[in-house]
């Protein structure tokens, strides 16, 4: 084993390697690792914050849901009441309308009935008079029986 100038050569190589490592290798790798460490820490913090926010939002959502349910119940109640009112109102209206129509129809019918009876009576009276005239043409002395004829005409008319 001999110590010789190889030693110096090796020292030069070693110095060169250390210098290269110090200048070009160590800083970027350490920087990348440090940056990742920061990123991970930030990520974890963000995740925690997110979880907190989710909890808050959940609480809020429950509140909103309850409120909405109450509102919905209220609205449904109101609507039901309104519907009932409407139905009642419609019923009343229909009833009064029906009654009105009925009364109108009845009055019209009555009137038509009276008119028809009147017409009929007139026609019957005329026919009777005509018939009586035909039958009694010869036998009646108009002058003699004037009183009777007038009475009959009065009764029929």
């Amino acid at each position, binding site marked *: *084993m*001999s*110590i*010789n*100038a*190889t*030693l*110096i*050569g*090796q*020292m030069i*190589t*070693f*110095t*060169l*390697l*250390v210098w*290269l*490592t*110090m200048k*070009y*290798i*160590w800083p*970027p*790798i*350490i*920087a*990348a*690792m440090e*940056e*990742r460490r920061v*990123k991970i820490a930030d990520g974890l913090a963000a995740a925690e914050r997110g979880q907190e926010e989710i909890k808050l939002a959940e609480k809020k959502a429950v509140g909103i849901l309850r409120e909405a349910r109450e509102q919905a119940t209220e609205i449904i109640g109101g609507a039901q009441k309104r519907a009932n009112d409407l139905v009642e109102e419609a019923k009343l209206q229909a009833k009064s309308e029906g009654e009105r129509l009925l009364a109108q129809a009845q009055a019209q019918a009555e009137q038509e009935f009276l008119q028809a009876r009147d017409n009929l009576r007139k026609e019957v009276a005329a026919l009777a008079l005509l018939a009586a005239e035909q039958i009694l043409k010869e036998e009646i002395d108009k002058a003699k029986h004037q009183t009777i004829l007038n009475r009959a005409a009065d009764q029929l008319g």
Partner: protein
Amino acid sequence: MASEHNATDYIIHHLTPLRVGEGFWSFHLDTLFFSAVLGGLFIWFFKSVAERATSGVPGLAQSLAETLVEFVDTQVKDTFHGRSDLISPLALTIFCWVFLWNAMDMLPVDLLPDIGHVAGIDYLRVVPSTDLNSTFALSISVFFLIFFYSIKVKGFFGFVKEMTCTPFGPWLMPFNLMLKLVEEFAKPISLGLRLFGNLYAGELVFILIALLPPVVQPLLGFPWAVFHILVITLQAFIFMMLTIVYLSLAHEDH
């Protein structure tokens, strides 16, 4: 393979570096080459990750790189309480580079030397950590850094005071200095020798297993390789860890 050689020649051949030059000014080309290639591999992998580093979902390569970076960063932060832009990258470089050096041990002992032989290279020692020059290059660099930071943090006089007046007070100055010098010099020597010794021994055992009859080789080679997975990682970790500890000691006032 083994039967063609005399056993001793085989072992010596495997542990002889590819050497050029004479005396001190000679170079182990194989050590330099494999170290540079492995260092390049390390830089290339981490650089490609660093360029595409995203703080979003990391890919497979980035995950691997970040695992290593975070592992080293944790070790540094646990041990070293000052602020330094150098120590973490230094520790990462040491861990990965030494690990890659040691991992060369997992290649079959004859694979690369045989390829080299075909290519006309007679000697090839593929594991850089079985070369004392490599391990000492690292430990001596760390040693310089220890001195540099000791003086930078404590000031020159503070450093001198620490070297001469501890642990037994100013009256035993020479004795203190001697103790301190031994202590300081023991650090790089133990660092370098520990890594070298472990990997050299490991490689030697692989070579010895390669000398056995082919039928027996897997029976011993496999458990040793599995055990070595632990050793190569552990030695890289120990080297890195001790570097961090020594440098953090250099930063502390007594």
